[in-house]
């Protein structure tokens, strides 16, 4: 009976349903990457590609593992009722809180996707999930400190980044709430955890399960999540390495003529570089002495933690494709508009 409960809940929680899954993306990607290894191994760019790819994975992997572990413990130790009870009565108010949750729960963008997957499964509203997903990796004390240090303790820059990140996260959270229902936006296998949660509570109340067993179950959920999402990180990191090799930083910079083009190019660079939100300010700051305006540097720092190639692929594990396209469009538009306003407000 106990085995049945574990099996059931796990199946629904992580979507380990082989029949319903498509493996074309991993298969094509694996063949493509292996082909690269076979045919281009001796070319000068291969070392740059390989080192960039492996570095991004090594840097992001611990955060992602931590994110899945936290998600696993949320899954087992926090019930849906507790989450609902914690949220304010009005759904829209939740969005304003969720966008700033990173201040007390600082996570970078690699760790946040598995955490949000679990929170969504536990009943957190769609708008709040989007707001936390986008705001969490920017509105947090570690990112604030790293931005301030990178810009030689220019507090305005750090505070501006927080405020823009928060504003955009709230705005897109509200829009997502208006445009989609949770069922329309989120994969059914992620939402299915709610049903599994209720069923498990009926079959065997949590109070009857020892802490040790519950912890074991949390780790099992976490490891399943890692196997599910880890591949997206690898594919994203490889794509980032490939684009970094194909397009040099100088190519990006040389295309920057007007502020608008500079903002767009820096947004493109943020998507390509796939940097961690806790260190990307150092790269943004490296453009201080070029002709790139502050507004474009800000766009780079705000967009990167919300949307880059690696994240785009990781979002596939949470959102339906149509929603990812809409969210990507909203994020790009909002960041561009915010940077554009900043450029003329200076």
């Amino acid at each position, binding site marked *: 009976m106990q*085995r049945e409960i*574990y*099996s059931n809940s796990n199946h629904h929680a992580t979507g380990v349903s*082989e029949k319903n*899954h498509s*493996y074309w993306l*991993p*298969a094509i*990607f*694996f063949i493509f*990457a292996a082909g690269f*290894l076979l045919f281009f*191994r001796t070319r*000068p*760019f291969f*070392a*740059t590609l*390989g*080192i*960039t*790819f*492996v*570095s991004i994975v*090594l*840097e992001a992997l*611990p955060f992602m*593992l*931590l994110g899945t*572990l936290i998600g696993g413990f949320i899954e087992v130790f926090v019930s849906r009722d507790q989450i609902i009870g914690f949220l304010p009565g009005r759904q829209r108010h939740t969005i304003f809180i969720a966008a700033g949750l990173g201040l007390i729960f600082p996570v970078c963008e690699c760790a946040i996707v598995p955490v949000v997957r679990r929170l969504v499964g536990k009943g957190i509203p769609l708008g709040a999930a989007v707001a936390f997903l986008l705001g969490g990796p920017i509105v947090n004390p570690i990112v604030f400190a790293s931005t301030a240090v990178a810009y*030689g303790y220019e507090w305005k820059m750090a505070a501006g980044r927080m405020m823009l990140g928060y504003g955009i996260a709230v705005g897109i959270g509200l829009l997502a709430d208006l445009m989609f229902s949770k069922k329309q936006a989120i994969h059914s296998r992620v939402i299915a955890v709610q049903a599994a949660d209720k069923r498990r509570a009926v079959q065997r109340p949590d109070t009857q399960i020892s802490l040790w067993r519950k912890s*074991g179950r949390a*780790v*099992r959920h*976490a*490891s399943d999540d*890692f*196997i599910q999402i*880890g*591949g997206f990180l*690898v*594919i994203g*990191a490889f794509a*980032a390495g490939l684009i*970094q*090799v194909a397009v*040099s*930083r*100088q190519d990006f*910079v*040389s295309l920057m003529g007007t502020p608008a083009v500079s903002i767009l190019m820096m947004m493109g660079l943020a998507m390509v*570089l796939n*940097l961690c939100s806790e*260190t990307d300010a*150092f*790269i943004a*700051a*490296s*453009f201080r*002495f*070029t002709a790139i305006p502050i507004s474009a540097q800000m766009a780079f720092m705000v967009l990167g933690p919300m949307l880059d190639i690696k994240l785009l692929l990781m979002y596939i594990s949470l959102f339906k494709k149509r929603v990812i396209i809409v969210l990507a469009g909203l994020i790009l538009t909002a960041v561009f508009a915010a940077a554009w306003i900043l450029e003329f407000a200076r």
Partner: protein
Amino acid sequence: MMDDIRKTFKQIMAAGFSSIIYIVWLYALGWLLMEGRYRAFIQPKFSWLLLLGAAILLLYLLSHLLRPLPENKIRTSIGGLARAGILSLPLIFLYAIYGQGLGAHALANKSVSGADVMAIPGLSAKDSKLETKPGEPISLLTLVRHMEKLEGKQVIVEGMIYQDAVMPSGSFLLFRFGIYCCAADAIPVWVIVQGDNPLSLPNESWARVEGRLHVQPHLQKNYPVILTAKVKELPTPAPGGQYLFF
């Protein structure tokens, strides 16, 4: 004893590809951490992150091995194989590129119009101390940070050589890469060298350069130039020793 081994083996097989992936990743992280090989990819300050990652992977491996058997049958399917293949790809690349570091290709790829040198943290701040010992090399980072203080003095630095067709025969760049977090964010750190004799070393050779430092202003920026330099070839350091860390 044999029974125990057989039982463990059965459990590993039953746990499927996921467990194999955890084991291989654990081995790779251990290999990287044991002798500091991770320095070829990430900032040493973040080595604890890899340790944390290894601890969590170990936890996941144990959870897979101790999992009830019927559930594990799922993981030996084609889907499991596909996921295992993708998750093993960084390790295959790690094996393929280990021993190599970022070189001339990355210099061209990651450089931004000579602004790299201006981007070094602490360049304008007064918080980094200049410590030099006569006859000993200083790091390229120290040289760039303190070029004004070092102007006119004899300096020794080590790095990689890059010379292109438009440079005069004795002139070249001596460069290394500075890393904040991981090699993906590497920034080239370089000095222009004007040697006494035509350069006989190929690009990406490691060399020790000794000469007098001159600060050359150009378009409102200052650039370090080593004049009348003597160049001595060095063996290529291990990849972990090639980078400078901010």
